[in-house]
């Protein structure tokens, strides 16, 4: 941007929370003056800082188009994707960029993701066939209505903005959390899948849906319209029904 001969008129101050574990006792804010044009995203602002001003700044990014889920950060206190947020929205005020809330800071804007990845693995995030199926039987067929039931929940890009938004996860990281529960629901709601009863064991636990207090901020910040709040809270109803009806229903009834 700075070397193509264009006259750059605007400079925005970007304040970034820095933390280098090997030299910093605790995180601190560092300000940078970043020249920008109206088409620049916050991610591009960070890239300008790293390329031109301070090569020590660390942050995750990849696709630049809101599909890889790497560049999540707290931008003026709100969880957002850096590539989907634009510097012009904040000018002439300053921009404050911090790592995603509720996660431990590894370095600068890089947070520890082991907890999230571990939870993702626990929910059987794949189609478990209802009964054995041969290749000769061909592909599964689904009606548009069957697709509609799970499609929005499959839009999750694992960006963890919902975890940064969720105060219950912040207060107790044992909570499985909105994104993973939304993905769990994606598979339960898929007509091809047969592992609902196993997944529901996670749902029924205190760490499952019962840690949620319907704050709803997760759905507010989700960049892909997944609506994890809906996934979690409708499973409260399902879990409660199962809790009361389990002695009445025959054993093995998949609820």
């Amino acid at each position, binding site marked *: 941007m700075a070397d193509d001969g264009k006259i750059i008129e605007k400079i925005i101050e970007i304040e970034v929370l820095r*933390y280098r*574990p*090997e030299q910093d006792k*605790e*995180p601190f804010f560092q300000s940078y003056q970043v020249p920008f044009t109206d088409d620049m995203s916050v991610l591009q602002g960070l890239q300008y800082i790293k390329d031109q001003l301070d090569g020590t700044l660390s942050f995750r990014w990849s696709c630049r188009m809101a599909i890889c889920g790497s560049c999540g950060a707290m931008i003026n*206190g*709100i969880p957002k994707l850096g590539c989907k947020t634009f510097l012009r929205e904040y000018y002439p005020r300053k921009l404050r960029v911090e790592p995603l*809330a*509720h996660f*431990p*800071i*590894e370095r600068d804007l890089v947070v*520890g993701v082991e907890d999230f990845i571990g939870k993702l693995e626990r929910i059987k995030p794949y189609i478990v066939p209802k009964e054995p199926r041969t290749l000769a039987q061909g592909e599964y067929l689904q009606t*548009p*209505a069957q697709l*509609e*039931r799970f499609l929005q929940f499959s839009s999750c890009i694992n960006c963890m903005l919902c975890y940064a938004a969720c*105060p219950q996860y*912040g*207060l107790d990281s044992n909570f499985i959390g909105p994104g993973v529960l939304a993905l769990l629901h994606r598979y339960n*709601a898929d007509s091809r899948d047969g592992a609902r009863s196993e997944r529901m064991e996670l749902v029924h636990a205190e760490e499952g849906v019962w840690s949620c*207090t*319907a*704050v*709803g*901020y997760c*759905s*507010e910040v989700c960049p892909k319209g997944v*609506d994890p*709040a*809906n996934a979690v*809270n*409708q499973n*409260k*109803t*399902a879990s409660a029904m199962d809790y009361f009806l389990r002695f009445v229903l025959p054993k093995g009834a998949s609820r």
Partner: protein
Amino acid sequence: MSARRPYVRSMDGWWRRNPFFIVYMIREGTAVLVIAYAVVLLFGVVRLAQGEAAYDGWLTALQSPWSLVFHLILLASFVYHTWSWFSIMPKTMPMILIGGKKLQPAVITGVGLAVSAIACAALFVLVMKLAS
């Protein structure tokens, strides 16, 4: 790996940092006033069970200006509870498909608020009828 020293940030004052969370805490706070009203009614039934003199004492207290002001505050809180309850209710419901299209949350909220308005009006009319 030994150079890692993850830093965990405090959750102190988390809800004060975002207007969305302040609204959430207010919504949850309506619970205190729901309990307050239930306690008022509870006193009422206890006094009712104790006889006319005791009950009339409760009724007189209810007629005081302080009580009226208190109930105006309660009323505002209950109205806000009704509003916030039906706003969040769509989140607790499974997807409903009508003619292949998702039933919109706004419809559920609207229906809930309408039913509440009708129920309140009906209760008022019923009490008027019983009183006369």
